[in-house]
């Protein structure tokens, strides 16, 4: 026990020994150690006592913050601590887009359906987006980009949990724009989002008509682009705190501003027809989402665009055609001093911790701002700043009470599927997963409203004064469902259910685990390293050890060990 304490000290002090290979493990994602006897209780002393595991734990922790899938070989490789080089390499990788996979998997699923005698196949729908999302999330090399894109999808929300659910190609194309935005420039990102027909539908600036008589332009997009996508409700200092006047926060905009921005976002119509419509050319103004292309950016119809001067924020104006006005308005928002701290906080919350310090927000926002010569809005630099910040990396911060974050349900799920040995007879990684949305409260691109699954300012009663957004979807129902999902995955062995007669299900392969669990400590240590980054406390560890030892058969031992590690707070609460 004494040595375990030493180990924790070494973690806290940021012990930086050169990484060595984990005892007996090779570069495969399963333990192949050949220790000959039941090591028993002393094993964790032996393993942690050498002090060298700290770097592997730290690497595993870093990868859990920046990827969906990481294997032991990745942890080994990154145990040299050169995270910056890894990030640079990730940024340099070509983008793995969702759309091509979506198209291929839609066609394959359709062919399976017809081969089984089905008629009138439905889609591509959000089901096919789900299939493609999982395939790409679990196989793409550019993991960091995908992890950031998921975060962006929870800021720039459109949802298949609406009529958009019928348009898998639209959801995929939109997600591809977010992938571009992950390491691109924020200004391009908000332009892509603004012109996307699915966003146009979701926030109703598609076919938004200029003022006619008493009918005024729709204000939906004008409001949400300010409140949710760029600047938020109140003026911010660069460290994310509110600017105060007479002790009160200062609103960033009022209803008159919304009316002016609503005029800007008029005149956009579909940029092409849906393939199935048999029409060609550009659709007329008023053609709805069902008829138009779900991927071609919206285009102007100048006759429907509000003429005249529009008053933007901070004294700016615009008086141009549709694209000119939108360009000016997006520039106006992009250059608002709020954007840096606003976006910095949201992204830090989704990757690192729920309660970043003002200093941390300030450092990241400064990178966003391009202060000191950088390019304003360079998202690759922002992501890098978030991940490499001392508050994200240095062990001294990890034990602060507010240093934690509840890992969001979809990331918890993806990292389990990503790491476990899989038995995948079909070779496909298709997951319909809609029940996860209902039962866990989160699923990619299925938010119930534009306000995302949970709010950045959510404070559960049990964490008085601390923000913990993900706790908003952790309640009487979802908490039990979470434990039971783990049961389904690791006890019933089914990771994925498809909707194609379950011919494409994905299971856990216990072949190696049934062997490895015979050396209990190594088994626990392996999953502690990978899933809980060396933070499995002695108490939980003893409970897991006891449970494994009290089950009489190897597969039962392997399963109960995994079940208890994954249900433990150390897995879901990320520090």
């Amino acid at each position, binding site marked *: 026990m004494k040595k375990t304490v030493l180990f924790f000290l070494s973690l806290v002090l940021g012990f930086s020994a050169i990484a060595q290979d984990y005892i007996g493990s090779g570069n495969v994602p399963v333990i192949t150690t050949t220790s000959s006897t039941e090591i028993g209780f002393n094993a964790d002393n032996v393993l942690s006592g050498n002090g060298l595991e700290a770097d592997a734990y730290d690497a595993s922790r870093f990868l859990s913050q920046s990827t969906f899938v990481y294997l032991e070989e990745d942890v080994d490789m990154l145990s040299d601590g050169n995270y910056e080089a890894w990030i640079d390499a990730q940024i340099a990788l070509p983008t793995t887009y969702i759309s091509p996979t979506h198209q291929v998997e839609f066609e394959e699923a359709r062919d399976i359906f017809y081969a089984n005698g089905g008629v009138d196949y439905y889609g591509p729908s959000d089901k096919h987006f789900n299939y493609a999302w999982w395939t790409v999330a679990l196989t793409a090399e550019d993991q960091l980009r995908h992890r950031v894109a998921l975060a962006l999808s929870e800021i720039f929300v459109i949802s298949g949990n609406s009529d958009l659910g019928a348009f898998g190609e639209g959801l995929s194309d939109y997600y591809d724009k977010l992938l571009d935005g992950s390491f691109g420039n924020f200004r391009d990102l908000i332009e892509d989002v603004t012109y996307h027909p699915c966003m146009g539908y979701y926030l109703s600036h598609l076919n938004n008509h200029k003022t006619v008589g*008493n009918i005024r332009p729709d204000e939906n997009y004008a409001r949400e682009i300010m409140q949710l996508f760029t600047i938020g409700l109140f003026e911010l200092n660069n460290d994310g705190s509110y600017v105060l006047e007479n002790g009160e926060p200062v609103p960033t905009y009022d209803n008159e501003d919304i009316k002016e921005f609503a005029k800007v976002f008029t005149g956009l119509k579909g940029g092409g027809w849906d393939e199935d419509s048999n029409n060609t050319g550009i659709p007329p103004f008023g053609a709805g989402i069902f008829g138009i292309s779900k991927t071609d950016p919206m285009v102007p119809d100048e006759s429907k665009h509000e003429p005249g001067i529009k008053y933007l924020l901070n004294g700016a104006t615009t008086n141009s055609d549709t694209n000119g006005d939108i360009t000016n308005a997006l520039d106006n928002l992009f250059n608002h001093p709020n954007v840096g701290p606003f976006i910095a906080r949201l992204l830090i919350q989704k990757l690192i911790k729920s309660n970043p310090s003002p200093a941390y927000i300030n450092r990241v926002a400064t990178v966003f701002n391009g202060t000191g010569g950088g390019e304003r809005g360079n998202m690759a630099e922002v992501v890098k700043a978030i991940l490499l910040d001392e508050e994200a990396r240095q062990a001294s911060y990890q034990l602060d009470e507010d240093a934690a974050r509840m890992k969001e349900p979809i990331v918890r799920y993806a990292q389990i599927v990503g790491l476990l040995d899989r038995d995948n007879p079909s070779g496909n990684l298709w997951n319909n997963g809609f029940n996860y949305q209902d039962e866990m409260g989160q699923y990619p691109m299925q938010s119930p409203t534009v*306000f995302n699954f949970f709010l950045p300012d959510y404070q559960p009663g049990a964490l008085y004064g601390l923000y913990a957004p993900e706790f908003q979807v952790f309640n*009487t129902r979802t908490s*039990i469902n979470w434990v039971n999902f783990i049961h389904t995955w690791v006890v019933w062995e089914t990771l994925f259910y498809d909707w194609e007669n379950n011919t494409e299900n994905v299971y856990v392969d216990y072949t190696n685990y049934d062997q490895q669990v015979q050396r209990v400590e190594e088994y626990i240590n392996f999953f502690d390293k990978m899933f809980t980054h060396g933070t499995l406390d002695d108490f939980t560890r003893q*409970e897991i050890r006891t449970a494994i030892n009290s089950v009489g058969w190897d597969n039962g031992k392997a399963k*109960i060990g995994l079940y*208890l590690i994954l249900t433990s707070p150390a897995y879901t609460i990320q520090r």
Partner: protein
Amino acid sequence: MGYTTLFSTLTNLKSIAAVANFNSSIGDCDDYKALICFSMRGGNDSFNLLTPFKDSGETDTQYDVYSAMRTDLALGLNDLTELTVNNPLNGRLAIPNYINGMKTMYDEGDLAFLANVGSLVVPIANRDEYYTEIAKPLGLYSHSDQQMHWQTANPAVRTNKGWGGLMSEMTNQSSCNTAVSVNISLNGTNVFQTGNDAFSYVIHHTNGSTGIRNYGNGGGFNNARDMAMDNILDHDFQDAFKNAYVSTIKDSNDTHLLFSSSIDSVNLTQTYGDSRLEQSFAMIAKTILAANSSTPLSNMKRQIFYVDLGGFDVHDEVLVSQQDSLTLINSALSSFRQEMITAGLHDKVTTFSISEFGRTLTSNGQGSDHGWGGNQFLMGGAVNGNKVYGEYPADLNYNSSLELGGGVYIPTMSADMYFAELALWFGVPKTDLPIILPNISEFYDIFSNENPLGLLS
């Protein structure tokens, strides 16, 4: 809104104020009341639920307009049973023969209909006013938006706070039984039951509540798992986040154990069909009985249930599909009502229907499309039944004052009026109605001595 700390603080202050008021108007813990929100998802084609009527041979009646507009979707006179109608302006009205159980409830004064009710931000008198800048619900004709609006009573914005959830936070059960949420859902979490902090306790229509799978079921694996989980979930991790995580799971599992033992200890007297809807009403009945007998659930003074039935989005095959759905509803309500009468709880339980929109009166050849105003019903011992409330569109013709094209009608009654009646019956003081129904003052003077509609007593 609903996005900033500042805003939540304001809302919370309001809720606290409301609780104070609410306590003064609510009785003791044995003053039990339950509301059941029954949602017909997809948009019920309610022109075939509450239908104009005439004697055969009559001409130039509202029924003739209905029949001409509906073409293949019109119910024949022989398919309909006439209702006694209290408001002569509504003309003669009927319901389909196949919901004869509901006809009985109507005749016996336990069921009422509401005519042409829908989501509104402010009253809209006619189509001329509609085509002005007058505020209209966001996303008219969209399922997701209109479902949200019926559940939030706030159609000018997209919010995920529902009036049931907000109302439940005003009930302040703290002096009574807080073991289980006031809000119980048979169909997953929903906006209706989501408040600032409140959310649905979700149960299954036959299995009831959900706990840790196989917990307490015995066997080597389960026993070892149970013991480890018990210890881990009880442990103080010296970490607020981890403690919040384990205590949520533990409390949820404990709630399940308590809930299931309560449900298991009551017996129903009526028989219910096997469909999910009928079984859902059986489960609701069990829960209500458990709350009103000596079980761990006893002493709950208020309960709000949510149950829904899908399949109303019938762009084709309306007649067959709707008959199937309404027959199920008729059966479920019949068993449930008898159960409540037998248990002596009939006056304390009110079931009310919602549906995101009515459908077009006109046919697309096989079915109807998304509309706006529609007809609803409510049932219970407290209902002043045997009446049709509100105004059925006086003129169903194209281009009549309420018609917006294709047989879509501007609602003549705001859903807020309907909800206000239910909230008042539940115990919300009139002056607190705006807390749960933000637009109510557009339709009703909350300082008035008269109730909005007089639906309940």
